[in-house]
């Protein structure tokens, strides 16, 4: 599935929930599907500090594609990360760095991406994009 299609699917999924609590129940459930970061990477170096909750993120580069694993100490953050990773993981650096993350807005959770809400999610998306840009630069150099 492309990043676009994956986002569309998530947006469609969330249309079933009219009630906020149901929506969050689903998010929390999704957190349980998060590809967990290997214990060895749960270090200061992989930590993205939010004001409220913390996120650990790791990237693997295989066959020209980036794969992410992560964790958080807050279960809602974990659910959201799970969604972000579902959308972005397994794509090429270029696809990732070009991708526009619109589903968070569309499912009504845009406040989590506000720069004034430092709960780690925005920083995490930024970090993922940075990985992508870095690997993209690397592969371009390799191709020359």
């Amino acid at each position, binding site marked *: 599935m492309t990043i676009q299609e994956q986002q569309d699917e998530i947006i469609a999924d969330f249309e079933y929930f009219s009630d*906020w*609590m149901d929506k*969050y*129940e689903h998010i*929390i459930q999704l957190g349980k599907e998060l590809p967990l970061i290997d214990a060895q990477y749960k270090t200061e170096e992989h930590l993205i500090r939010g*004001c*409220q*909750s913390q996120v650990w993120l790791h990237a693997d580069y295989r066959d020209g594609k980036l794969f992410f694993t992560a964790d958080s*100490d*807050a*279960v*809602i*953050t974990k659910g959201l990360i799970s969604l972000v990773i579902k959308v972005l993981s397994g794509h090429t650096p270029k696809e990732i760095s070009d991708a526009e993350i619109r589903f968070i807005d569309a499912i009504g959770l845009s406040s989590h991406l506000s720069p004034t809400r430092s*709960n780690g999610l925005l920083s995490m998306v930024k970090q993922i994009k940075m990985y992508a840009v870095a690997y993209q630069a690397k592969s371009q150099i390799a191709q020359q």
Partner: protein
Amino acid sequence: MPDSLTIAEGRKLDIQKIRKDFPILETTVYGHPLVYLDNAATTQKPKAVLKAMDDYYVTINSNVHRGVHHLSQVATDAYEAGRKKIAAYINSRHTHEVIFTRGTTESINLVAACFGKKFLAAGDYILVSAMEHHSNIVPWQMIAEEKAAKVRVIPIDEKGELILDNLEKLLEGVKIVAFNYVSNALGTINPAKTIIDAAHRQGIPVLLDAAQAVQHLTVDVQDLDVDFLAFSSHKLYGPTGLGVLYGKEEWLNKLPPYQGGGEMIKTVSFEKTTYNDLPYKFEAGTPDMAGAIGLGAAIDYVQQLGIEQIHAAEHELMVYALDTLAGIDGLRLIGATDARHRAGVVSFLVGNIHPFDLGELLDKQGIAVRTGHHCAQPIMDRYCIPGTVRASMAVYTTPEEIDRLAAGIRKAAKLLG
């Protein structure tokens, strides 16, 4: 333990009537009527406060002091009337002992910088407590670093109360003591008078951070005999952007000025500048006229209800809240369990639920609480927790809102458990 607070009897407040004075309380959040329990962060403002500021702008707005013209004269009188109301509210001996600042934080910075400049030397100690807000820690750390002085800390016990057994010893080598009357993270009411008396016995001045006290308790600077007192307008039903520093005349006269500029000087030349009298010596620049008038109106409002009546009503609500929350499975109250030792704030955790998760789900049910370290990280370190969920009350908070909170916590905990 607080010194000896008695709960006022008699005339009861009509909370439903009071709520009508605060239009924002009728807001709906995510389809639910708002339950605003973030009053320790900032209180809502009664209509009278907004009206006083609007009236100022629409009828007399003008720069104060020095002006010959009518508007300036009337604006100056109104502005100074604000100062008088504050002086009366905290029972200061002189009106000019009340200095307007930008907030509690600026008030404390002013004292730290000016006191430090003149009275701190290498090796001196500043005594603060382990339950201070960052605003009563960082300014002292900064001046301590500049002067090679040191910050010493009064520890707290598991119940969130100051451990004062060794107070005499803690005071050794100390040049100034700074602590909060009421803790914003725990709600603990500290025994201000006991500490002030002990410090004074050794000739040490005391700054009291009353940011969480003036809206809940009677604060009488002469009775406390405190040397400096700081609070914010926005936590006392007043406008944002304004704070108060009370200082004993003798101390304020001893301190060097803080900021330079208009109003705080008598004469200026490039050779020599002489400073103005109190309170203007510490008020450089055009003051916040509308703010002072707004805070004056807020104090009128509080006085009209009666701070003792407010205290009584809030105490009753605190008893109810502690009781109600105690009935929630896995809820761990942080701090004192006795309502008489608390004002305004309940801080808690539920099971292993992250405070952020709980706060998020309460918000979606229309309940506004604060989560995190509440700008008091050292307390969180003390309890080895990442933060707490904090529900904080004001005069307009009702038992029904506490019920909504409890139900909200239960619902969230079920989802998160």
